[in-house]
């Protein structure tokens, strides 16, 4: 099996106000095409782990490999490039830029990658929006659409560079049942039809149950 993401002996401490060990010697890996959910109670360290895995938090001990490549801890612009190219993010809050319309928001990481021409990126962005069923919103300002729609735009943005893995931090946490189901269905579809690897942090058991694999955490340790 092709390992997309591999964590070896990850340890993390918070030093302020007192030293607490939040992640204790975590080791696991995620294979290509897996739809994994990361669950646990609030404060168990699941979000902390996600941010370590996402390369945004470099203050940890241990080794992180993405696509077989070890992530350095110091080289900020290299990590930015990795995030741009190989990781797609969906957060609890959508974080769309209000200055841009929906299409431009989706295109931004693609333009940053600078692999395709502007027209090509635009075409790809439209495709992603179509997959998510929101292509009719393309030219709307991003603060003029509903919460569920915003989250779908955020997913489209995560998909634009065809990342190795999509990471989500409670992507359904702010949504009602109907929209949560919609987002789950999208993730499921991505996993089934496009063999997309997904790692989603959630504390919604009904969401977690429907994924391929559940990583359950308690007090900084992986239980199963």
């Amino acid at each position, binding site marked *: 099996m092709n390992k997309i993401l591999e964590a070896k002996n990850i340890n993390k401490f918070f030093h302020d106000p007192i030293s607490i060990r939040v992640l204790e010697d975590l080791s696991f890996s995620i294979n290509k095409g897996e739809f994994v959910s990361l669950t646990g109670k609030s404060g168990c360290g699941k979000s902390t782990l996600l941010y370590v895995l996402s390369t*945004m938090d470099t203050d940890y001990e241990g080794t992180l490999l993405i696509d077989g490549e070890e992530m350095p801890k110091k080289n900020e612009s290299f990590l930015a490039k990795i*995030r741009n190219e190989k990781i797609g*993010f969906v*957060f609890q809050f959508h974080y769309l*830029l209000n*200055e841009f319309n929906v299409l431009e928001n989706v295109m*931004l990481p693609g*333009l*940053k990658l600078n692999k395709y021409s502007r027209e090509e990126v635009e075409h790809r962005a439209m495709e992603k929006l179509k997959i998510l069923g929101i292509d009719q919103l393309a030219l709307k300002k991003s603060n003029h659409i509903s919460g569920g729609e915003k989250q779908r735009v955020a997913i489209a943005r995560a998909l634009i*560079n065809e990342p190795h893995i999509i990471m989500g931090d409670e992507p359904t946490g702010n949504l009602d049942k109907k929209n949560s189901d919609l987002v789950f269905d999208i993730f499921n579809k991505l996993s089934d039809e496009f063999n997309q690897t997904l790692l989603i942090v959630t504390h919604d058991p009904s969401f977690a149950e429907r994924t391929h694999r559940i990583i359950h955490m308690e007090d900084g340790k992986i239980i199963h």
Partner: protein
Amino acid sequence: MKNKLLISIAKSLLLARWKQTLVAAVGVTFSITMFITLLSFMSGLNDLLDGLILNRTAHIRIYNDIKPNTSQPINNNKEFKEAHNFIGSIKSDASRQAIYNSGAIMEAIKKDPRVLGLSPKLTAQVFFNDGSIDITGSIFGINSTEESKLYHFDEYVTTGNSADLNKINNSIILGKGLSDKLMVGIGDAVQITTSKGDRFQLKVVGTFQSGIKDFDNVQSYASLNTVQKILSVPKDYVNSIQVKLKDITQAPKVAKEYEQLFQTDAEDIQTANSQFETGSSIRTLISYSVGITLLIVAGFGIYNILNMMIFEKMDSIAILKATGFSGKDVKKIFIYIAISIGFFGGILGLFFGFSLSATIDQIPFNTASLPTIKTYPINYNPKFYMIGIVFSLITTYLAGWFPARKASKIDPVVIIRGK
């Protein structure tokens, strides 16, 4: 492509907060406007004041000074050659104030490529007789064409025509004060007595106003020939040669050279009028410091606005970083924002600065001592505009640099988890 993307993001951020942007840009515009106006006006005034003296003064004046002879007989005595000789009560040796061999010297100077032109001058101390009153004065014998060309003589001749000095025999142009005292006008005759007692009748062909009243009360101009006639001296008799150089800064060097070469005295303008140099440079310094202070204040405005913008746009910065923009990219975006405020504000400032100085240039400014000046003087030197735009870019860059660095250091995890 990459920078184009960053620029387009910067543009969107700018336009999204266009009111703040406008306030920041207006600050820059205002300071550049004042900077340009202040410098143009100040240096216009400087040029005017310097022109009062400097334009009319030769860059190098060649003359024979009244001073003791440097080669005293005792120094030539072989016995005391090695000794240090003390000589008391030396008298100045003023046998002849005319320049020896002036014709040849003038020919030689004319051939010097550094020289713009020269005009010979002969001064005569005379009394102007008006009935029983004698007024002391002096007549400068000049070549009025050369004098007009090099020292703007014609600009100060307020009535009559400077060229008439050459055309009409035994003619004179009197200072305004002098002509008022003598109560004569164009066409009248004045009688003068030389220091040797010779009397002459001269015809008034004009009056001049130099802007310095003391001059106008005692001075007058006649052609070189006329003054030579008055003093009964030969045609090559002149007591000073006024040289104008192409580059005024070379004057001290060239003056030294001429002193050696022609065995006369030569005085450069910097030595003769050092106080004017000092005055102008201090006025310039003051205008620059006021202008730059204005720009720095505008810079603080930009700094504040960018800081606020970064505070408001924390989320956007965080997501940009999460989706692959590096700290460097974020920094560039904010630097672009700052520089574009500086650039557009600055360009507008240059335009308004030009308009404001053009307006000041139209305001009437009449003063009795400056007959040629009708409006406030303005110097439209492109140098000020260059300095203005460069400074506006530099200050806005610096004002943007600190907030931009702050933005680049924002940790996306802190922002995103903080929700």
